[in-house]
């Protein structure tokens, strides 16, 4: 009878370390795998932005004929009064709206984080900052669009003016929430440990808070973008905002000749809705991936 256990006949295997390049590759692969949702979301945004910006760069300036043509061969969405294909013109107009909303969302949330940081820094010495958060909370009762409309009525329209005003709106509407995030971190173990170790308030905030708040802030800005674009479209539609070559401007132009050339209203509207829905889904993905369990070293 043979023995139940097999006996190794070859030379014994050496307990050697894997090559460094393989370890480095494995580390990179693991990092990509853990952050796959973040990378996918970022690729989605990049793809969308490059698509819109490329379309705007190659838009045919057309010939101002003041005559529009219905959808037909070669121009499935018709031609507008500037002699441009409606599909291309709609995408090019979207570039302005998306850029303005993107800038306003990130500027606004950035300002909010800085203000929240300031409030968190002085919380122990000056609790009177609570009134600022309350004002921010109460500011939400007035329609943001009306706020911007009042200022625009006096100040006029323009790209940077709109970005500035929308950033202020974002600041007012998010300051309270971002201050709550800072407050949420007050009772965490890291903060208490930092205090026991004798770190200053500023050092504690830098060490414990910023990574957490920045992640959430980016996600918040991403979710605000579609709403800001909708606000910009509404403003441009009534004659403010980014002028006639933006999405709102195109819709206003189309509404003026609604019964004569309905394709000038119908198709841009569909493109706007589809883009906003995509951005909304991307924002949702961003929020999900940023709040998820991702390695802190990524930030």
């Amino acid at each position, binding site marked *: 009878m043979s023995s139940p256990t097999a006996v190794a006949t070859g030379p014994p295997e050496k307990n050697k370390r894997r090559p460094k390049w393989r370890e480095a590759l494995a580390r990179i692969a693991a990092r990509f795998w853990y952050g796959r949702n973040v990378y996918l979301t970022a690729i989605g945004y990049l793809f969308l932005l490059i698509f819109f910006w490329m379309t705007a760069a190659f838009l045919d300036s057309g010939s101002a004929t003041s005559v529009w043509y219905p959808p037909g061969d070669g121009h499935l969405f018709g031609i507008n009064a500037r002699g441009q294909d409606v599909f291309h013109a709609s995408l090019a107009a979207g570039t302005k709206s998306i850029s303005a909303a993107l800038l306003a969302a990130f500027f606004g949330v950035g300002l909010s984080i800085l203000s929240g940081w300031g409030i968190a820094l002085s919380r122990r010495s000056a609790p009177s900052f609570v009134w600022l958060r*309350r*004002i921010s909370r*109460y*500011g*939400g*009762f*007035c*329609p*943001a*669009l*009306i*706020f911007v*409309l*009042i*200022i*625009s*009525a*006096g*100040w006029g329209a323009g790209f940077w003016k709109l970005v500035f005003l929308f950033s202020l709106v974002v600041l007012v509407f998010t300051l309270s929430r971002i201050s709550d995030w800072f407050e949420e971190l007050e009772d965490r173990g890291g903060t208490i440990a930092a205090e026991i170790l004798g770190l200053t308030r500023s050092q504690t905030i830098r060490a414990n808070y910023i990574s957490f708040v920045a992640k959430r802030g980016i996600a918040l800005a991403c979710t605000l973008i*579609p*709403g800001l674009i*909708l*606000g910009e*479209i*509404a403003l441009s*539609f*009534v*004659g*403010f905002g980014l002028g006639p070559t933006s999405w709102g401007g195109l*819709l206003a132009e*189309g*509404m003026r000749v*609604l*019964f004569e050339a*309905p394709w000038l*209203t*119908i198709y841009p*509207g569909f493109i*706007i*809705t589809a883009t*906003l*829905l995509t951005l*909304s889904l991307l924002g949702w993905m961003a929020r999900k991936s940023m709040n998820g369990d991702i390695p802190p070293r990524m930030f």
Partner: protein
Amino acid sequence: MIRFLVQRFLIALIRLAVVLGILGLVTEIAIGLKGGDEPMRHVWQWFSAKSFPPDFVPRLMASLRVLLICWTVVMILGLGIGIFRARLRQAKSLEIVWLPFVALTWAPAFWLIGLVALWLMERWGHPGFADGQAPIGGAETQAVNQWWHAMILGIILAAGAIGWQFRTCTTGIRDSAKQGFVRASYMRGHRRSIIFYDHVLKNSMDALTGIVDRGLPATLGMLAVSEWAFRYPGLGQFMIESARNALPDQIFIGAAIFSTIAILMSMIAEWIYGGLDRRVRTS
């Protein structure tokens, strides 16, 4: 209970004062930015009856009519779909049923108005805008026409707002359903429907009563632009016309009314919340 109601009323008054202060400041800044020799009405000059435009009350009533229709539809459908979606949260394939509502959230209301006007033109041969003749009745049935136009505008606005409201409602209920007592009830063998309707819903009153006021300011903003697009003689149209004529002082009063409506609705939501949940009013 009375103490709770009075307390929330006083808080609403403070909120109103703060919001009016912010609005007044913003208006004065806008007047300052405009400059020029044109005489402007300052915020404090609005507090006399002579300052109001002559057609102010009919415009306010017209806007309230739209808001009544819109918000009734939003509350009924938002609450209904929100609860239904939360109850069927395990059926992931059903999510596609709600997708049209989510898509409508991102469709500009004034664009939908254009589509409805086109459809009315095709169907009845009338442009369908509020300044034209309504397809039902004639000049003699003016009241019916007013409600007809308000209904078109209200339902279009509601279509956009429902998507927001039912998602907020569902998220709140789902958060409640994750609590420990729900799992314990399952483990003890209680029926799913009893756990959901008797316990989870009662513990998510914040989300359910939030239907009354959350999202209202955004809808009010869109109402102003939609009124202008639909040529509907409401307060929103008045504000947009004032902005187009570079008269920031004229917008103040409309904005103040819209903010007051939002604050009132918020107070009503808090009253309902406190009335339904003893823990809130006694805390």
